[in-house]
C-alpha cells in the first residue's frame, strides 16, 4: 500500500502504541516505587508505634506494655508480620514469636528499612524496618517485619486503581486522536481528487486544460506546476503537429490540383484519361496519409451522440456517384429510424467511407454494396466480391497490407478503419456474406438508452 493516508496511518499507529507503552511503563514504574516508599513508611510507623510502648520499670529494666488490639494483630498473622525489640548488644528482649531477620546497618541514622530472602529465591520475601530509641541512656532497637505476600495486597490495590482510573481513559483518547488525524489527512488531500478529476478529462481535444493549484497542499504545488509545464510542452508539440498536418495537406493537394487541371486540358484524351486515373489513385493515397496523420494527433476521439443513419446516408450520398460510375449499386438497409451511438462523427464517416470505397474497389460491376444498420448497434458493409480468406483476416488490418500488389490504394484504408474503431472503443471484424463476398462489421459499445 502506497497511499499517503495509509502511510500516515501506519506511522501514527506505531507512534501511538509506542507512546502509550512508554507512558504505561513509566506510570507503572512510578506506582512501584510509590508502593515501596509507602511500605517503608508504614513499617517504620509501626516500629515507632511499638517503640512508644516501651518503658522502664522502677528497677530500670525495660517493659513493653502493648495494648491488646496491637498485640493480637501480630499474633493473628501467624508470623507473616512480626516484631522484635533488642538491646544494644542485639539480644531479643521482647518479640511476637518467630525470629526476626538480622539487624540492618543504621549508618548514623535512627531508622532503617531493609528486605531479605529467608529461603533464598523462594516465594518468601521479607520487608523490614527498624528504629533506634533511647530510654534512660540505654539504646533499644525495635524491628517490624512483614512478609511480601501481604505486601502484594497493597500492590494489587495500587495496580487496580491505576487501571480503573487512569489506564482505560487513555485507550479511547488515543483512538479518537488517530481518527481525527486520519480525517485531517483526508481533508488535506481532498483537493488532489479534484485535480485528478480534471486530469482525467485531458485529451488531445482539451490539451489547453491545466490542473488547478487552488486548495492543493503547498507541498504538492510544485508537482502540479511541473505537470502543468509538461502539459504546456505537449500542447505546443500537438499544435506544431496539427499545423504540420494542415500545411502538408495544402502542400500535397495543391500540386495535385495543378497536375490534374493541366492534364485535363491535354489534347490527347486517351493519355489524359490514364493520367487522371493515376492522379485519382495518388489523391486517394494522399488523403489516407493525411487522415492517418490527423488521427495520430487525436489519440482520443471526442465523443458525442452521433446518428449512424445520418453518417451512413452522408457517406453513401458522397460515394454514390463513384458507385454508379463504376456500374455498381449502393444501398442502405435500415429497419428502424435513427441509431444513436457515442462517437466522433468525422472519424466515423472516414471509417465507413473507407469500408464502402474498399468494397466498391473489390467487387465486380452489376453487384450491390449494402450498408446495413442494426440496433445492436452495428454497421455492416456487405459486398458480393471475392471475400476475404480466413487466414488473411488479421493481416488485412495492418498498414500497407495489400491483397493485390498492383491493386489500387496504399493499403491504408482498413488500418485506418481499425485505428478509428479502436479509438471509439468499438471494433471491426470480417465475416463471410452468406451470398458470397465479404461482410465488414463495425461494432460500437452499447449506449445507455435515452428517450
Amino acid at each position, binding site marked *: 500500500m502506497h497511499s499517503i493516508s495509509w502511510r500516515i496511518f501506519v506511522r501514527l499507529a506505531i507512534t501511538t502504541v509506542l507512546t502509550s507503552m512508554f507512558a504505561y511503563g513509566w506510570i507503572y514504574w512510578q506506582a512501584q516505587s510509590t508502593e515501596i516508599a509507602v511500605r517503608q513508611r508504614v513499617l517504620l510507623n509501626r516500629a515507632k508505634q511499638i517503640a512508644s510502648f516501651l518503658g522502664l520499670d522502677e528497677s530500670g529494666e525495660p517493659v513493653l506494655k502493648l495494648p491488646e488490639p496491637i498485640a493480637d494483630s501480630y499474633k493473628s498473622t501467624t508470623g507473616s508480620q512480626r516484631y522484635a525489640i533488642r538491646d544494644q548488644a542485639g539480644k531479643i528482649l521482647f518479640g511476637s514469636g518467630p525470629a526476626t531477620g538480622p539487624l540492618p546497618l543504621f549508618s548514623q541514622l535512627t531508622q532503617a528499612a531493609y528486605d531479605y530472602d529467608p529461603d533464598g529465591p523462594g516465594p518468601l520475601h521479607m520487608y523490614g524496618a527498624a528504629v533506634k530509641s533511647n530510654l534512660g541512656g540505654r539504646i533499644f532497637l525495635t524491628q517490624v517485619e512483614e512478609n511480601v505476600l501481604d505486601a502484594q495486597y497493597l500492590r494489587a490495590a495500587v495496580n487496580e486503581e491505576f487501571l480503573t482510573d487512569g489506564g482505560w481513559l487513555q485507550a479511547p483518547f488515543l483512538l479518537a486522536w488517530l481518527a481525527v488525524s486520519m480525517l485531517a489527512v483526508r481533508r488535506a488531500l481532498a483537493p488532489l481528487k479534484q485535480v485528478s478529476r480534471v486530469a482525467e478529462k485531458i485529451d488531445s481535444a482539451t490539451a489547453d486544460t491545466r490542473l488547478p493549484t487552488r486548495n492543493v497542499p503547498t507541498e504538492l504545488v510544485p508537482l502540479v506546476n511541473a505537470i502543468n509545464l509538461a502539459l504546456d510542452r505537449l500542447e505546443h508539440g500537438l499544435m506544431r503537429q496539427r499545423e504540420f498536418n*494542415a500545411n502538408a*495537406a*495544402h502542400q*500535397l*493537394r*495543391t500540386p*495535385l*490540383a*495543378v*497536375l*490534374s*487541371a*493541366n492534364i*485535363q*486540358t491535354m489534347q490527347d484524351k486517351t493519355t489524359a484519361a490514364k493520367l*487522371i486515373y493515376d*492522379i485519382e489513385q495518388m*489523391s486517394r493515397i494522399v*488523403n489516407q496519409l*493525411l*487522415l492517418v496523420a*490527423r488521427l495520430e494527433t487525436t489519440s482520443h476521439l471526442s465523443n458525442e451522440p452521433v446518428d449512424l443513419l445520418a453518417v451512413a*446516408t452522408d457517406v*453513401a*450520398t458522397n460515394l*454514390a*456517384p463513384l*458507385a*454508379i*460510375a463504376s456500374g455498381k*449499386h*449502393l*444501398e*442502405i*438497409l*435500415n429497419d428502424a429510424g435513427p441509431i444513436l451511438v457515442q462517437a466522433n*462523427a*468525422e472519424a466515423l*464517416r472516414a471509417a465507413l467511407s473507407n469500408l464502402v470505397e474498399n468494397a466498391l474497389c473489390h467487387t465486380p460491376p452489376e453487384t450491390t454494396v449494402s*450498408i446495413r444498420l442494426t440496433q445492436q448497434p452495428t454497421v455492416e458493409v456487405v459486398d458480393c466480391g471475392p471475400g476475404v480468406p480466413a487466414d488473411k483476416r488479421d493481416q488485412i488490418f495492418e498498414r500497407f497490407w495489400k491483397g493485390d500488389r498492383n491493386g489500387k490504394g496504399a493499403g491504408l484504408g482498413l488500418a485506418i478503419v481499425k485505428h478509428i474503431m479502436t479509438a471509439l472503443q468499438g471494433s471491426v471484424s470480417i465475416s463471410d456474406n452468406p451470398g458470397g463476398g465479404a461482410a465488414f462489421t463495425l461494432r460500437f459499445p452499447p449506449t445507455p438508452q435515452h428517450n
Partner: protein
Amino acid sequence: MRILLVEDHDRLAQTIVKGLDEFGFRVDAFATAEDGINATRSAEYEALILELGLPDRDGLDLISELRQCNIELPILILTARDGVDDRVIGLDRGADDYLMKPFAMKELAARLRALLRRPGRVLGTTLESGNLRFNTVLRQVVVNGCVAPVSSREIGALELLMRRAGQVVSKRALEDTLYGLSGDVNPNTVEVLISRLRKRLDEIGADCSIHTLRGIGYLLRE
C-alpha cells in the same frame, strides 16, 4: 461571365484561368486576399473562387468581411483542408459551396454554373443533361429540339434531379419539394413518380437515366 479567383499558387491559378476559359468563363486571378478585396471594388464579378490558405490572411476571414460589406457575390471555396469543421465554418460564414483539391475542371465549371443558375443569378434558365434540356421559366422539357410531354409533377422531380445532376437527391428532398412539408405523403408516391419519369425519359429518347439507390436516394446521370 467574369469570375474572380483568389489563389496564391501561380500555376494552379493559371491552369484554372485557362481551364475555365474553355467552359466560357473569364477569370481574373489574384494571389492575395488584399488584392482580391480591391478587385471586388473595382469590377463587377459574377462569382468568387476562393482558396482558404492565403499568404496574407485566412480565406475564412475574407468571406466574413465580404458578407459584412453586403457583397452578395456567390463564393465557392477551393480548399486543401478536408476537416468537416473548416467546410462547415466556411459555409456558415456565407460561402455557397466548396470543392476539395484536387478537382476536375469539369466539376468546377459545373458547380460555378449551378451557383450562377440560382434565382437572381446571371446564368440562363436552361438546365442541361445529355440531350435533355429543361427551361425553368417555361417549364418545358426539350429533347433533340422537340418539346416532350411531361406532367408537372414529373417536371418538378426532373428539375431537382437536373439541378443536382451526378449527385444524389434524397427521397426526402423530393417529397419535401413536391408535396410540401405538411403533405401527407404515401411512402410509395415518390417511387411511383420516379418510375413514371424514368419510363417517360425512355419514351422521349433522353440519353440520361435515373439511378435508384435504395435507402439513399436518386441520381440522374448522362
